[in-house]
C-alpha cells in the first residue's frame, strides 16, 4: 500500500486544456517519475476551478498552494522546489484573490481561517477519492466495523438521536427519529436512499463530498441499512454529476471487492448492496417521493402524503431517504460519539453546516462551519467583506426554496432554532449575498420563474399558481403593478402554501411572503412611484 505524501491537481477545464494543461500534466508525470516520487505523490486532474485568468493551474496538497498559470517549462522547477525540496515555488504562485468555485474551499484548507470546522468535509480534498486504501488509512470503515461488531441496531439509532443531528437536505428533520421510524416500520424489505440530486441553484456542497469522499457515503448508508434493517440502497445522483457517478461506482466496486458491501459484510450476518441511479435532470426529482417515483421508472412527481416514505417508500416498502451532507456526518458521529458531535454548533442544532457563499462578496466559495455562525461573520471572515465596499442589503438563504432576509437579520445565529423563530429557512445552505444593486422584486420574480418552470404540474395550485404569481411579479417589475396585484399575490402565496401537494409549491410562496414582510418599502416604490430603487427593473410600462 502506498503512502501518499502530497496530492497534485492540474486544472482540466476546457480553457486549461486549450492553454496546454495536458502538456503540463505529462511533464509533471515525467518529472515526478524522474525523481522517484511516483509512489509518494498522487497526481490528478480537477475540472471546475472557477476562474479563468490563471489557468492552467497546479495545486499542491496538503499545503493547498496554488500555482498558475503554469507552462510546461515551469514544471521541472516546480517539482524540484516544492515536491522535492519542500519549498514553495513563489515565482509561480497564482494571485491569491477572488477564488471561486471549488478552488475557493480548497484554498480555505490552509487553516488560516479561524472558525472552519470540518466534519462533513473531513477528507474531501485530502485523500485520493478513487482509492479505498487512502480512505481506510484516514479512518475509513472504522465506524462500520464498530457498528457491526459492537453495536446493536438500536444502539446506533440511540447514538444518532443523542447526537441531535438534523437532516441537511432542507427540512431539518431529526435524523435519528427518521431512522427509528424506518426501523420500526413493519416490512420484510426496506431500502436506504441517498438523496444526491442537489439541484438547488447555487448549491454544490453535496458534489464535493461525492467527488472527494465517496466512501463516506457508502459507509454511512451501510450503517443506516444495518440500523433500520434494509438490504438494498440507492444513490440518486443528479444527472449532470458525471464524475461523482463514476467515483461512486468505482468506490462501490472497491467496497464489494473487500466485502465491505455485499453478502455477510465483515463476516457478519448482515448483507447490503448499493446501486447508483442517475437523475433525470428535473429539480423536482430531489423531492424524496418524486425521487422514489423516478427510481421506480415513473414520471418524477411527488406522491401525496401520508403515507410517508418511512412506511411506504420505494416499491411501497419502508424507505429511509437522507441527504448526502446528512449522511456525511454519520461515520464521524459513530467513531467519536454523540457527545463529541454536540461540542460543535448550538445545543439545539449540533454539528456543522456546509455553506456555499455566492454574490457580492470578495471571496465566494464553500465553507464548513459550526451551526450558529451569523451572516455578518460569514461575510466578514469568509467573504472577506462586501465587494467594492458596498453594504449588505439582503441575502437569500437556502437556494430558491429558502428565504430572503434583510440586513437586519445578519446577526441572527444561523441554526435551525434561531432561524425557525425568525421564520427563515436554512434550506440547502446556499448563501446568496446581495448589495443594494439587487432589487428584491426582481429577485422574487426570478425565483418564481424558476418555480413555474420546475413545477411538476401535478397539482392545481402549484401548476397554475406559480405561473400566475410570476406574471404579477413581472408586471410589478415592468412598472404596471397595481394595489390589487399585491392583494392577489398575498392570496396566491397563502393558497400555494395551504393547498400544494409538495414542498415545491409550498415554498414557492416564501419569496413573496418575505418580500412583503421585510421589503414593503421597495415594493411600494414599484407600485406607487413606478420606481425601482435598485435601478434593476425595466419599468417599461408593459403589462403581460
Amino acid at each position, binding site marked *: 500500500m502506498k503512502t501518499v505524501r502530497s496530492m497534485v491537481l492540474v486544472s482540466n477545464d476546457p480553457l486549461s486544456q486549450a492553454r496546454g494543461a495536458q502538456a503540463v500534466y505529462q511533464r509533471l508525470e515525467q518529472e515526478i517519475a524522474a525523481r522517484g516520487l511516483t509512489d509518494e505523490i498522487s497526481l490528478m486532474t480537477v475540472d471546475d476551478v472557477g476562474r479563468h485568468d490563471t489557468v492552467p493551474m497546479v495545486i499542491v496538497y496538503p499545503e493547498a498552494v496554488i500555482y498558475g498559470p503554469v507552462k510546461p517549462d515551469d514544471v521541472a522547477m516546480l517539482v524540484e522546489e516544492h515536491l522535492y525540496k519542500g519549498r514553495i515555488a513563489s515565482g509561480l504562485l497564482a494571485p491569491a484573490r477572488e477564488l471561486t468555485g471549488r478552488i475557493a474551499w480548497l484554498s480555505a484548507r490552509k487553516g488560516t481561517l479561524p472558525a472552519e470546522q470540518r466534519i462533513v468535509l473531513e477528507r474531501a480534498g485530502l485523500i485520493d477519492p478513487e482509492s479505498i486504501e487512502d480512505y481506510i488509512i484516514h479512518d475509513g470503515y472504522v465506524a462500520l466495523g464498530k457498528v457491526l461488531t459492537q453495536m446493536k441496531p438500536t444502539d446506533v439509532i440511540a447514538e444518532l438521536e443523542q447526537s441531535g443531528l438534523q437532516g441537511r437536505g432542507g427540512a431539518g428533520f431529526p435524523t435519528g427519529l427518521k431512522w427509528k421510524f424506518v426501523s420500526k416500520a413493519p416490512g420484510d424489505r426496506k431500502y436506504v436512499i441517498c438523496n444526491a440530486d442537489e439541484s438547488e441553484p447555487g448549491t454544490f456542497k453535496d458534489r464535493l463530498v461525492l467527488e472527494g469522499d465517496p466512501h463516506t457515503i457508502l459507509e454511512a448508508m451501510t450503517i443506516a441499512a444495518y440500523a433500520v434493517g434494509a438490504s438494498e440502497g440507492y444513490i440518486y445522483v443528479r444527472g449532470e454529476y458525471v464524475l461523482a457517478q463514476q467515483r461512486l461506482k468505482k468506490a462501490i466496486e472497491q467496497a464489494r471487492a473487500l466485502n465491505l458491501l455485499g453478502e455477510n459484510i465483515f463476516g457478519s450476518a448482515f448483507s447490503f448492496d448499493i446501486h447508483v441511479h442517475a437523475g433525470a435532470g428535473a429539480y423536482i426529482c430531489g423531492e424524496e417521493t418524486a425521487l422514489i417515483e423516478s427510481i421506480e421508472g415513473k414520471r418524477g412527481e411527488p406522491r401525496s402524503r401520508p403515507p410517508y416514505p418511512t412506511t411506504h417508500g420505494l416499491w411501497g416498502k419502508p424507505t429511509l431517504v437522507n441527504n448526502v451532507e446528512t449522511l456525511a456526518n454519520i461515520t464521524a458521529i459513530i467513531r467519536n460519539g454523540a457527545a463529541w458531535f454536540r461540542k460543535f454548533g448550538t445545543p439545539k442544532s449540533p454539528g456543522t453546516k456546509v455553506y456555499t457563499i455566492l454574490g457580492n462578496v470578495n471571496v465566494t466559495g464553500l465553507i464548513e462551519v459550526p451551526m450558529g455562525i451569523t451572516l455578518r461573520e460569514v461575510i466578514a471572515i469568509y467573504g472577506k467583506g462586501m465587494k467594492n465596499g458596498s453594504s449588505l442589503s439582503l441575502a437569500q438563504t437556502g437556494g430558491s426554496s429558502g428565504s430572503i432576509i434583510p440586513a437586519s437579520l445578519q446577526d441572527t445565529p444561523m441554526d435551525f432554532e434561531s432561524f425557525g423563530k425568525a421564520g427563515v429557512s436554512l434550506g440547502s445552505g446556499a448563501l446568496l449575498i446581495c448589495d443594494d444593486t439587487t432589487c428584491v422584486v426582481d429577485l422574487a420574480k426570478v425565483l418564481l420563474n424558476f418555480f413555474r418552470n420546475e413545477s411538476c404540474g*401535478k397539482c392545481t395550485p402549484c401548476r397554475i399558481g406559480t405561473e400566475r404569481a410570476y*406574471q404579477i411579479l413581472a408586471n410589478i417589475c415592468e412598472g404596471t403593478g397595481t394595489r390589487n396585484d399585491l392583494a392577489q399575490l398575498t392570496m396566491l402565496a397563502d393558497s400555494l402554501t395551504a393547498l400544494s401537494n409538495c414542498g415545491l409549491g409550498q415554498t414557492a410562496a416564501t419569496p413573496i411572503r418575505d418580500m412583503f414582510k421585510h421589503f414593503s418599502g421597495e415594493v411600494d416604490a414599484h407600485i406607487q412611484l413606478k420606481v425601482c430603487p435598485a435601478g434593476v427593473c425595466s419599468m417599461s410600462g408593459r403589462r403581460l
Partner: protein
Amino acid sequence: MADLINVYINEVLVSVPKGTVIVDAAKKLGVNIPVFCYHPKLKPVGMCRMCLVEVGRRKIDRATGQPLLDANNQPEIAWGLKLETGCTTPIEEGMQVRTQNEVVKKAQKDVLEFLLTSHPLDCPVCDKGGECPLQNLTLQFGPGTTRFDYNDKQHLDKHYPLGDIIFLDKERCIQCARCIRFQDEVADDRVLGFYERGRTMQIDTLSEPGFDSKFSGNTTDICPVGALTTRDFRFRARPWEMTHVPSICTHCAVGCNLTLGTRRSARDRQWEILRVMPRQNEDVNEIWICDKGRFGHHFTRSQARLTTPLVRKNGQLAEATWDEAIKLVAERLNVVYGHVVGFIGDRVSNEDAYLFGKLFREGVKTTRIANRPHVAGADLVQKYGVGSGTNLGALGKGTVVLIVAGDVEETAPVYMLRLRAAAQRGAKLIVANARETKMDRYAANSLRYKVGTETQLVYGLLNAVNQGSGIRDQVAAYTPAKVAEITGVPEAEITAAGKLIAEAKDLIVVFGDEQPYDIMVNGQYTDAGRALPQACANLVVATGHAGKANNGLLSLWPHNNTQGVFDMLAANGAQWTPADGLKALYIVGSDPIGEGQTLPKSEFTIVQELFLTETAKQADVVLPALSFAERDGTFTNAERRVQRYYKAIAPLGQARADWEIIRMVGEQLGLKWTHYLTSEGVMAEIAATVPQYSGTEYAALAQVTEAWPPVGSNDLYFGGTAYDNRGGVGVQIKSGVELDGQSEMNWIEPPVPSAESTLHVRQLNRHGTLIDQSAVYQPRLIDAPIEPAQVLKGA
C-alpha cells in the same frame, strides 16, 4: 366485521372497512366532498387538491399506546396543521374529518378559482356542458366571481386528435390524469401520458397509431371536463336535449349495459342514437364498455336497412304489403306441413327465439330448427355454467380461472378488464392458448400448446388433479408426461397448473372456440367440435366446481345471445335433422350464405332480416325486422344473466320486431296467439314454463340495486348523467345442476390435429354487416387474421 373502522365526518359517526379513503367514507354518509382527479375505479393520486379537508387524529399516549382522554372522557384530537386530500388519506380509528368549515370552503373556492381562470369556459359549445363536474362543482362550491384580473388562459389546440376517434381539447384539460390512469390501470394499454411539466404539461398519446386501445371511449366518460370528445358525438348535441334509454350492447356475449342517448332530429323528425354510454352494472360491465359497443350503433339508422316486406315476383324481389307477405308465408308453410327447416341467428332476443321455436312446434309441426352452427357446448354451459350469484368483480384470492382456446380481449373485451382485475386481487389465471393473447400478461401460468391439442391439455390438467370417477380409465392415459409430448407444453407447467386447480377454492373454466376443427358438419355437431367443451365440463364436474356461485363454465360465445337462443330452442325441443328436397326454409337473423356456407336445397325461402344480406337476396320473401334500439326484449349473456333492453328510437319504415313477425305468421297459420301482445307477455310465458328462466319476468329484470361506487346521477360525484342504472341489473339464472343436482361426465375422444389444421381466430374488429355501417369505426376494422399464418397451423 373485524375490519370496520369508526370515523366521524362532521361529527357524525360512520363505520367503514379498513383502507377506505375519506371521500368514500363521507360518500357513505351522503356527504359529498368535491373531487376531480379522484375516481373510485382508479388509484388515488391527489393531484387536483379539490378534496382538501381538515383531519384530526386521536392523541395517543406514548407510554400506554392508548388514546388520551379529555375532561369529558372523550379522546383528545390533534387537528392537522394542514388540510389533507380526502381522496388519498385512508381513514383511521377515531379520526375526525371536517368537510364544510370555513377553511375547507376557502380551499375549495381557491382550487376552483385556479382551475376556472385557466379554463376556456366555452361551456355553451362543450359536449360536457350540463353533465360536467367542473360546472357542477363550481355552482356548488365555487367563488361566484373571480378576484383575478389575470387570466393565464393559454391558447392551445382545441381539436387535437389523440387517435382516430378521440380528440383532446388542450385548453379544457385540467390535468387530472384520469384518462392516463384508466389506460394504465384498467385497460392496460399504456398509450397516454403527460408531456412537459408545470403549466405546459399536456396529455399526449404514446402509441402509433395514436390512442391504440379498444377501450378509448371510456376516457371521455370519466374525463371530468369536456377535454376528451369522440369523433362520433362531439358538437352534435347537448346532454339535456337527449333522452337516455337503458339498453344492452349487442356486439358480444358480455352484454354490457348501455345508455342510449337519443334525440328526434329537428331536420327530418327522425329519431336517432347520438351516443352510446355505459350504464353501471357492477355484476357485468361496471362502468366500462369497449369501443365497438360505443361506436357500433350506426347500423340502427343505416340507409341500407330494409323498410318494407319484399316478395319475389317474376324472379325479382319487389315491395309488398305485410298482409301480402305474411299470407304468402303462411300459405307455403301450411302446404308443406312437416317439410320445413328453421334457421335462427344468435343475435335475436329470447322472445324472438322462443316464439320461433313455438311456431315450429305448434304451427309448422316440426322441431327442425338450428341455431347458427358456430359454437358447441351451449347444452353443457346451460347445465354446468357459472352458478347463480357469480360476479367476476368479486373474484380474488382462492379463485382459479382457467382460460382455454379463447382470446378474451378479442372476443369479450370487458371480461379482459374484469379478469385482469381479479388477477390483481389475487385470483390465479391459467391461460392456455395456441397463440399469445393479452391475457398472458396476467397469467400465473401461460400454457402454449400446439394447434389442435387443447382437449388433451385439459385432460392432462385433470389427470394432474384427479382422475375423474366417471371417465377414470380414459383420463388415466393422459399423464402430464404424455400430454407434454402431445401438446408441447412442458410437463412441469402442466403439473404446476394442475396443482393450482387442485388447490382452488373456486374454479371457473373459460373456453373459446379458437381451435382448428369444424364444429358442425351436415347440420350435426361433430365430436371434434364438442370435445373441448365436454372436457371442460368434465374438469368442472370432476373437481366439484359445478353448480356454485363463482364456479363453473363460462363460454366466450361469439354473439350476444348465443346462450339465450339455445335455451329457447331447447325449451321447444328443437333439433336439426338435415334434409334436402325441402319445401320451405325459414331463416331469422342469420346470413349463412354471406358467411360462405351452403344452404340445403329448398323450394321456398323466407328470410327475416335488417339488411338485404346475401341470404336475403336468394329468398322468396324478405321480412324487415327491427334493430335492438327500436324495440324491447331480453338477452341472456355468457354468464347467463338475463337482461332487459328498452325501445329507444322509433321504428324505421314498416319494419317490425322479429317476435311480432313470427306472431303474425302464427296467427295466419291459425294459432290462437292473440295473447302475445307485447314482448313482456312472451317473457312472462317463458318465465312460467322454462324452469331455468323462472323469475325473469320483466318487472324482476327491471330491479336495480344500490351500487358502489355510486357513479352518475345528479349528485356531482363522478359526473356523467347517463351512467346510473335505471333499467335494471337483470337476473342471473340458475345452472342446470343447481336445479336438478345431477351431474355426469362423458368421454369424447380428443381429436388429433393434422399438419393442415388451421386455427380459427376471433377478432373483435373484423369487418361485419353491422359494424361496417359505422363510418367512425372504419379505421379500426381489419380483414386479415392478426397472426402470421404459420403460427396458426397444426404440428
